[in-house]
């Protein structure tokens, strides 16, 4: 109970930071209306969805360094086959993409639990395989999507309702029921101690496969939202690596403990706003966006450091 209270403090301080940054950003813009809010939400949707997937996997005691590649693969698949298609076909490919992503996630989890190789090594290797597949499907930047389909993500001219739903529906429809379900609880269980979970009757191997599959579900949603928002795909390792790094940073900023078993998905979703604001605000001042990468890296280290110190203090 005490721990959860501290988590709330953490989320509240992130919320405070988000509010400060929002005010800062809104002062940079001549008008701050619904169109600007929509732009911000569209900017964070991919980061937030990927961060949620990564956070879930970290909560379950793993880490997926291929999650960015997974999203880029789905981005490439959906953008390639939805180009110039009608609404129904775009929707069908979006669903196929998400299913593929879940399968990819499940295979990753299966390899990890069957081989006994560390998560880092397996996912570092699968990130190469997935980018290879993405390059196969979409050798260079390109692709497209049905515009009516994209509208369900982008919303109308000034309305930010649709993007807001895209952002919150996964939390409401996937995470909240999951967190209360047997499966969700066993994610936390294998995250805090595999042995203890095993001894209390959790099938660790199967849970891990589900863990990575649900992570893949979020990565797939991220890939589809990328297709809908950018209406294109670019199969580059640089993009997927940055996306993976962002997802880990958002998870850490959002109060998910790297040791596993602690955290939820609200914090990381909030934290992805911080990651979105840093480069955007700097760009607003005309500063080279490369600096934002430095700040983001430093911020991640700082957060892990402070988090570690707090935990060490709490133990004493």
């Amino acid at each position: 109970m005490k721990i959860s209270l501290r988590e709330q403090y953490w989320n509240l301080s992130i919320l405070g930071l988000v509010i400060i940054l929002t005010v800062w950003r809104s002062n940079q813009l001549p008008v701050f209306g619904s169109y600007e809010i929509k732009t911000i939400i569209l900017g964070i949707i991919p980061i937030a969805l990927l961060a949620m997937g990564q956070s879930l996997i970290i909560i379950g005691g793993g880490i997926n360094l291929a999650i960015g590649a997974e999203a880029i693969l789905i981005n490439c698949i959906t953008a390639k086959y939805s180009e110039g298609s009608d609404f129904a076909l775009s929707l069908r490919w979006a669903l196929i993409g998400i299913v593929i992503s879940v399968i990819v996630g499940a295979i990753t989890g299966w390899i990890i639990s069957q081989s006994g190789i560390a998560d880092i090594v397996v996912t570092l290797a699968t990130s190469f395989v997935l980018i290879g597949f993405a390059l196969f499907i979409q050798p260079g930047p390109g692709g497209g999507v049905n515009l009516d389909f994209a509208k369900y993500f982008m919303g109308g001219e000034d309305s930010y309702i649709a993007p807001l739903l895209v952002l919150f529906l996964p939390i409401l429809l996937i995470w909240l029921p999951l967190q209360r379900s047997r499966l969700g609880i066993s994610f936390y269980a294998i995250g805090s101690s595999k042995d203890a979970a095993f001894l209390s009757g959790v099938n660790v191997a199967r849970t891990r496969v589900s863990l990575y599959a649900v992570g893949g579900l979020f990565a797939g949603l991220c890939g589809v939202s990328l297709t809908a928002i950018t209406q294109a795909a670019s199969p580059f390792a640089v993009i997927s690596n940055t996306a993976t790094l962002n997802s880990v940073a958002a998870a850490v900023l959002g109060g998910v403990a790297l040791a596993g078993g602690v955290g939820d998905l609200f914090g990381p979703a909030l934290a992805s706003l911080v990651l979105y604001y840093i480069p955007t605000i700097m760009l607003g001042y005309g500063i080279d966006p490369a600096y934002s990468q430095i700040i983001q890296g430093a911020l991640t280290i700082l957060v892990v450091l402070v988090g570690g110190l707090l935990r060490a203090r709490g133990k004493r």
Partner: protein
Amino acid sequence: MKLKINRSIIALWIILALTFLVTGLVDSYFFSIPSIGITLQLAAPLGLLAAGQTIVMLTGGIDLSLAMIATGAAYIVSVKSESGLFISLAYALIFCVVVGAVNGIAVGVFGVNPLIMTLSMSAILIGVFTVGVSTFLRGSSRMPDLLITASSGLILDPITWPLIIWIIVGGFVHFSLTRTGFGRVIYAIGDNAKAARLAGVKVWQVQIAAYVSCAILGGMAGIMLGGQSGAVAISLANSYLLPSVAAVVIGGTSIMGGMGSYSGSVMGALILSVLSYLLATLNSSEAFKQLVYGGIVLALAWVYSSISERK
């Protein structure tokens, strides 16, 4: 224990021999002395990166900033080479020591998770060098001739200067890990940091030393890669990050630390180098290469872990 080590090393030799044979069957030119020389020459920087990664992974850590450290060191040497070779090398050395020390202090003193620390460090370095290219590190990124010779010069087929450097540096790493007190405490803290601390080892000092030596080895590898390509781009060593980890894992070093050896990593580096020669001769698309490379790395790691687990 003895039996297990022998089994693993035999398995590695068999895998190396198999990849060697398959490559030779696909491309008959591979069995010639010059192409073996080239393969060994290209294996040398990977071998040095794997040396750094081995040291860190033996302590139970990992260095995902290694590729950026390598690129950074090469970039500094090439841009600063106008002010003299030794001065430019000194700059690169300072860079490696500083980055390694920051990694080591964060991990050893502040207990930051090594994965996050080095991943973030990598992001920071990418940012610093992207900015640096147009500001404080502006200039020609051509490598000095002496370093080009040292990274690709032929002595006597198939022996090249980088191979000699790899043998000397690698031999030193192997000696340090197996025969010195430093090596012993590296294994000790990787096996059980708490026990090592109670036995009087200053764990944080060892960790700083490990990350600094890793960074220096990475810098050497980067300079060698830069010398082999002639000029340095900001993405120079990017593609070597997975191989550096993979060589160590295939070579039997546990990612949890405390178990493994540099000789295993050398075998891993050789296997991966022959493999990339094979993929290069297949004349296939980049997509196919990435796919096969990732797949084979995974398969090798799996085969290896199942062989060594059984006994």
